[in-house]
């Protein structure tokens, strides 16, 4: 491998800044599909192993019987520049893994809530979560074959979000559509959130 620059500069590697966007939504709403549509790598899956206490305990050194449970997280990657990498994380579909959402939401740039109109209620928890955490989000209505074509207005009424939350129709399988969703989110973050001022 030809290396430009000096090999001596150990410890001065440029480590890129990582940012993340969450892709949330109910079970089977198209989260992994959307990540795959824009990711430069085949979506990866990582695991968090959790100990499931059989009794309510508050002492982690307790000796109660425990079993382990695994939460899988899908994610993809988009290299923005030498200095910035964007990761897209699908949130775990199962509600019992809410604890994982806390870590996922920390420092997230924003979130996409995929709404599947065949079972819209499956995205309500995600909307509640991001509203309460103050995580900026957009709602992407993933139009499945055979699903009724609800209008944006109907979806907004049902979800009950203010006019400031963008809602757009999407097809998670389409790269262009997935890009539109992400662009809408980042523009929303830029217009509605006051970013930190340098210094």
């Amino acid at each position: 491998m030809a290396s430009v620059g000096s090999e001596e500069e150990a410890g001065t590697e440029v480590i890129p800044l990582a940012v993340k966007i969450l892709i949330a939504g109910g079970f089977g709403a198209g989260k992994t599909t959307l990540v795959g549509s824009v990711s430069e790598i085949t979506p990866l899956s990582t695991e968090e192993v959790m100990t499931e206490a059989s009794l309510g305990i508050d002492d982690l050194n307790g000796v109660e019987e425990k079993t382990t449970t695994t939460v899988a997280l899908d994610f993809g990657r988009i290299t923005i520049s030498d200095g910035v990498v964007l990761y897209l994380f699908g949130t775990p579909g199962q509600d019992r893994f809410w604890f994982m959402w806390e870590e996922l939401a920390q420092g997230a740039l924003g979130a996409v809530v995929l709404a599947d109109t065949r079972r819209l209620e499956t995205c309500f928890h995600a909307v509640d979560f991001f509203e309460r955490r103050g995580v900026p989000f957009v709602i992407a209505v993933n139009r499945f074959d055979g699903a009724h074509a609800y209008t944006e207005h109907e979806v907004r009424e049902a979800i009950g979000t203010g006019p400031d939350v963008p809602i757009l129709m999407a097809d998670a399988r389409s790269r262009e559509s997935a890009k539109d969703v992400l662009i809408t989110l980042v523009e929303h973050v830029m217009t509605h959130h006051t970013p930190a001022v340098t210094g």
Partner: protein
Amino acid sequence: MHSGENRLGALPSRLPRGADEGAEPQPGDSLPDAAAGPLVRPYTMTGGRTRPGSIELDLISVVVAARQHVEQGTLEPEHEAILQLCRRPLSVAEISAHLDIPLTVIKVLLGDLISRGAVLARAPLPTAQPPQMNVLQAVLDGIRRL
């Protein structure tokens, strides 16, 4: 192919649920398998070490192998595997996925390497403040270029 008539009224509405105010979604909140008990992180898997060194690593903390040598033989095979993998900067999540080792364990192994100076880490943005405008603009441009 059934018609969509009468389907419009079928969209459920979120806000009436808000009647039970203050109902923060919680792990196991009103869920069928809530009876299974709370989930906690398996600190015991890593010899009780919960803090990877002094730096708090998260999913997207980016790490890279330092160019200095660590004496062979003092590392576990998993440590070596991590060093091999992160010759180029990689996130904690990617290392975990590539090596098929759970995140919690990877964080501790990375902590070992960081404390020996074998791996350098860059923490993600401070969680308290939103990303700076120039970062957001770069992300926006990057997505548009896809």
